């Protein structure tokens, strides 16, 4: 048995240089100006594509870097840390759908960043066999070339120009939103979950971004607790604050362990890959929201002010939680996912009287 859950040198380098580039050029503070709606996070998306972060898991012969979902997950952790537009998630997913649906040109251009994708979330039911009429909510959709929407059954690539999109606002005010009704004309391609497990891959990338939020907010709180002084001591010396920080560290560590385990399972085609990514998805939003909330608390008054970025993480985490379906629905799906390894095992500690 070879177990090595440490990052390899190449992985460390990708993560390190992407983190540095984003922190340097796109600090989260860029999002404080709410007027940015209209311009979106276009420059950040372009820089991310230029870095090679989109479609890096495509095979060499398709112009990818021949890396895997594991590296893609690591990349999206960094995108989550920097609160890059959900367009990056959309592009990562859209490239897969385009490749599978025989649209290599679209896949190539999305990877390079010369074309852009946006996320569309189904509001209510979306039947993949008869998608027309489904209500959609699109994020950062202006001037995009493709919109991507998925359910457990499959995924669609849409041409947003064929949709009648009416701008509205999103709970996360750092992204723009628009409502639309799906029309048949707009469908560029569709794939079934049997051919490409889009929902699962997307789940991994969304969870990765949530992990990025989880880690970034932990770091913010810990850094602040070391320098903010009250009662003559850094507040991090007080157990009440220290224990908040410890909880945040556990939240991040637990999620990170499960997420990378799930990514390895996906890469290596383990039988329990759907279970592992489902588990990561169950934890991701909860841990990210808990950490973002605790960060506001640790920062005190400044945390409640718009000068502190903690709330930006909080709102993004809440938005990402809703991508791909509301939590109750993903919960039910997760409970139906088999966990073959322990399926028939487990001590029956129950009461002796079996009822039901």
């Amino acid at each position: 048995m070879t177990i090595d859950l440490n990052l390899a040198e190449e992985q460390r380098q990708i993560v390190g240089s992407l983190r540095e580039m984003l922190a340097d050029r796109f600090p989260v503070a860029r999002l404080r100006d709410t007027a940015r709606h209209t311009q979106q996070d276009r420059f950040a998306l372009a820089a991310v594509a230029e870095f090679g972060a989109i479609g890096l898991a495509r095979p060499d012969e398709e112009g990818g870097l021949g890396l895997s979902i594991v590296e893609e997950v690591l990349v999206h952790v960094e995108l989550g840390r920097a609160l890059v537009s959900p367009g990056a998630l959309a592009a990562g997913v859209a490239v897969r759908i385009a490749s599978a649906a025989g649209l290599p040109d679209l896949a190539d251009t999305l990877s390079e960043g010369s074309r852009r994708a946006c996320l569309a979330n189904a509001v209510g039911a979306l039947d993949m066999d008869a998608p027309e009429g489904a209500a959609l909510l699109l994020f950062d959709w202006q001037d995009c070339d493709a919109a991507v929407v998925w359910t457990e059954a499959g995924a669609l690539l849409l041409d947003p120009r064929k949709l009648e999109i009416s701008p509205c606002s999103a709970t996360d005010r750092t992204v723009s939103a628009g409502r639309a009704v799906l029309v048949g004309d707009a469908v560029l391609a569709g794939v079934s979950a049997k051919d490409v497990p889009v929902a699962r891959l997307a789940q991994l990338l969304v969870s990765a971004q949530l992990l990025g939020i989880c880690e970034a907010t932990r770091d913010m709180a810990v850094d602040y607790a070391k320098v903010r002084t009250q009662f003559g001591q850094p507040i991090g010396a007080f157990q009440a604050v220290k224990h908040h920080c410890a909880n945040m560290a556990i939240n991040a560590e637990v999620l990170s362990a499960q997420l990378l385990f799930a990514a390895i399972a996906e890469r290596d085609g383990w039988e329990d890959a759907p279970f592992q990514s489902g588990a990561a998805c169950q934890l991701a939003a909860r841990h990210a929201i808990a950490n973002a909330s605790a960060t506001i608390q640790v920062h005190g008054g400044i945390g409640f002010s718009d000068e502190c970025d903690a709330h930006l993480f909080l709102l993004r985490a809440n938005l990402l939680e809703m991508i791909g379906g509301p939590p109750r629905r993903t919960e039910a799906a997760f409970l139906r996912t088999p966990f073959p390894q322990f399926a028939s095992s487990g001590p029956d500690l129950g009461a002796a009287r079996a009822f039901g």
Partner: protein
Amino acid sequence: MKFELSDEDHAFRAAARAWLVENVPSEPAPHDGQPAREFALSWLRRRHAAGWSGIAWPKAYGGLGLSYERQIAWHEESVIAGAPSPLDPTFVSVNHAGPTLIACGTEEQKAFHLPKILSGEVVWCQGFSEPDSGSDLASLRTFGRVEGDHLIVNGQKIWSTYADIADYQELLIRTEPGSERQAGLSWVICDMSAPGITVQPIGNIAGAHHFAQVFYDDVRIPLSNVVGGLNNGWKTAMTTLGFERATAATALQIELSAKVEALLRFAEVQGDGGFAHELASARAEAAALRALTYRTLFKDPTTPFDGSMVRLFFAELAQRIHRLGMQLYGPENADCDRLSGWVYAYLEAFSETIAGGTAEIQRNIIGERILGLPRGGNR
């Protein structure tokens, strides 16, 4: 990042599985007293006779000399086969005392004790905490006076699990007169049958009597029983922590996943009891605990082992999962004379956030050693 099984791994697992299926005892483990001792020793003897004892112990000391990975594989297969919980009267000897002797003991100590531990002849208990020294272990006062080639020990220990059925105790005492804190302590092997020892079991919240107070009244312990050097006991005690990697605690962590799957099957039979959210959480958290356990165990082996996160997450999760089991099965207790089943496990799980470093101490350790937050004077 890799997690791969080779053909030999599959063969090892298959052999373990085949043996376990045939040999796992069908009756439940008794909670306390002599029956608990007999049950645990007999299970260990059976494993030893078949060559499954001390999987990751060095060959020189009677172990199989295999890797942590093999040890983990064994634990997983044991869980899948429904083997008795490893948190039994042999836990301290196999996971704690034995490894400490291997690291710090003299050849005589090793030659005498290690074979007995592996073959299931003896039960060990731990004697660290005192009535006035719980989280603040270094304030302990039980004293051993050097007299010729013996220590004369007086004092009191508490929360010593299975002290009433133990043959030996890992006893941490002050041996240097006037010493303070971590200095001047010694880690000694205490023969529990020595004159002057009184053991008083204490009932716990689950209705079991497996921990105890131990009183020492002029107990004579040979100096040759000191492990790791006189007045060097703190270091010996800390050395043991390095052996927490891949110990039976790992099996408990992995076992939670199997317990949640069992609850899920029960909930399906029962129909939706409105616990979907709790079940989904428990399932995801137990899965993550397993991933975190692997990550912690196989972190760069040159780094010091720090199990505080995995330990704390496990402890609190165990309480949530056992409570969920109790909720799903409803308020009827199966057994008329004592608590059993999920409620027993639920209450037992409360020891996890107290014993071996409370949840609060674990959070301090995470805050200070992992996150680099300052130690507070005024807490």
